[in-house]
């Protein structure tokens, strides 16, 4: 849905995994924009009706960009930077109860 317009890249390319698939991003990208640029349409499916959602605001207000990052659930993907090797899961429904450590 999005594409980069960087001409001479000053930010190194990185790779992360989304539901088992490898995607490419640039260091400094927010995770939300990295996902949008990698062709992820639905970031999550809602707990109420199961309908697909993706970011509305990209500024930390709408909470429609919540994903799971390295095992942490309900992370605002617009507020974290994409990191090399990050493991992202796109959630469906309500968050799982945490297993006790």
């Amino acid at each position, binding site marked *: *849905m*999005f*594409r*980069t*317009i*960087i*001409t*001479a890249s*000053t*930010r190194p390319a990185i790779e992360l995994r989304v539901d088992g698939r490898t995607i490419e991003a*640039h260091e*400094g*990208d*927010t995770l939300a*924009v*990295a996902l*949008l*640029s990698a062709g992820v*349409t*639905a*970031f999550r499916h*809602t707990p*109420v*009706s199961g*309908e*697909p*959602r*993706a*970011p*509305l*605001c*990209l*500024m*930390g*207000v*709408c*909470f*429609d960009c*919540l994903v799971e990052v390295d095992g*942490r659930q*309900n992370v*605002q993907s*617009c*507020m974290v*930077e994409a990191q090399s090797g990050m493991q992202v899961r796109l959630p469906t429904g309500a968050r799982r109860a945490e297993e006790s450590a």
Partner: protein
Amino acid sequence: MTHDLIVIGAGPAGMAAAFTAASLGLKTVLLDEQPGAGGQIYQNVTRADANVAALLGPDYMHGRTLADQMMRSGVEVRHGALVWDVARDLTVTALQDNRSFQLRSPQLIAATGAMERASPLPGWTLPGVLNAGATQIALKRAAAVPSVPVVLAGAGPLLLLVACQLLDAGVVVAGIVETSPSANRAAALRHLPAALTAPEYLLKGLRMIRRLRSARIPWFKQATNLAVEGKTQAEALRFSSGGRLHRIEAGVVLLHHGVVPNTQLSRLLRVEHDWDDAQLAWSPRVDTWGQTSLTGFRIAGDGTSIAGALAAEASGALAAVGAAHAMQRLSDDERHQRAAPLMRALARQLRIRPFLDALYRPPEWINVPADATVVCRCEEVTAGRVREMARLGCQGPNQTKFFSRCGMGPCQGRICGLGVTQILARELGKSPADVGAYRIRAPLKPVPMSSLASLAGKVHENTMT
């Protein structure tokens, strides 16, 4: 006390507040949720990609001047710090690197800025529907733009600015669909003489309109009955304009109906708010120095009332001057001397506001949407359901919460708050001020329980010093 002054937010108001306070000898710390200075308007300005900087021009790059000034001032700046609670004694609790910590100062300046007004209409929850400002953030932060044709719908200077910037970035703009009702023009005309006394914004507006016209973008006015079509993502925008039905295919639909103050923090602190009928939003009550109804708690910039980045800069500096005066670092005379040029700059910025507020006043159907439209995106509550609850006897948004969970999802009512208040006000025949707003409680954003462990044993120590 850990500091003389805590500033929250590193946008224009926060940066100006911080370096002004430091220059007046206040031991100042600035907390900001983002990884770098700039807020939303100057997001990522200290490390923006060169071609993005060129595309956004000097208005954006001005933010770098502010960030440099802040860095030189010696202010302690903590980025990646999410403030999630402020107590009425001004103890600030924040989360950074998965640890919560507390700071306390006699003076606190919230520069938490604005957010885009929600534009609830059928289909607005589909992936591919974004606020227009969201694409600006993607551009500033990651040099990313929509890869499919976009249609922009709504009203306001930002809608036209985003259209121009996307065009410059090579995006296909399939149409601009303006929703301002025809009555807005007459109402705005009254304020034109005042706007003409500071004409730079009008000239900018005219330049944008010329740019879009010369690109021959299909442009519709006074549009109504907007709906986004699509099964699992946005495919087209349909609407009525000029007595005809239209449909524009676009994979990205950008909505915008102005920006409104983000009042989560001021609501948390229960300070006085007024309903601003010109901006159709809540406005925390402040004096010249940003002082709210809670002593020492000040708000600067668009968090009080929308006036733009340059006004925010002046207002941030004024709040810092007020804080220094309250701490006896400035005499009455010194305060007056410092404030005079700032107040002149602020007044100049405010001259165009009534004109813009009237010209781009959002249409009725955005503020009080049709029954079938979802207003609370998190809990998927429709406007009709809110009206039904009013008929059942709910007197305000905190009661409708109990019965429907409207406003109780992860966004904590940020998106639906203004809409629910206005729907209830209309239904109950009351003013928005009488209906009130959601009661906001800590944490302002969800924080991991494990992050609280770092507070153990330190709460007492910090709050007592």
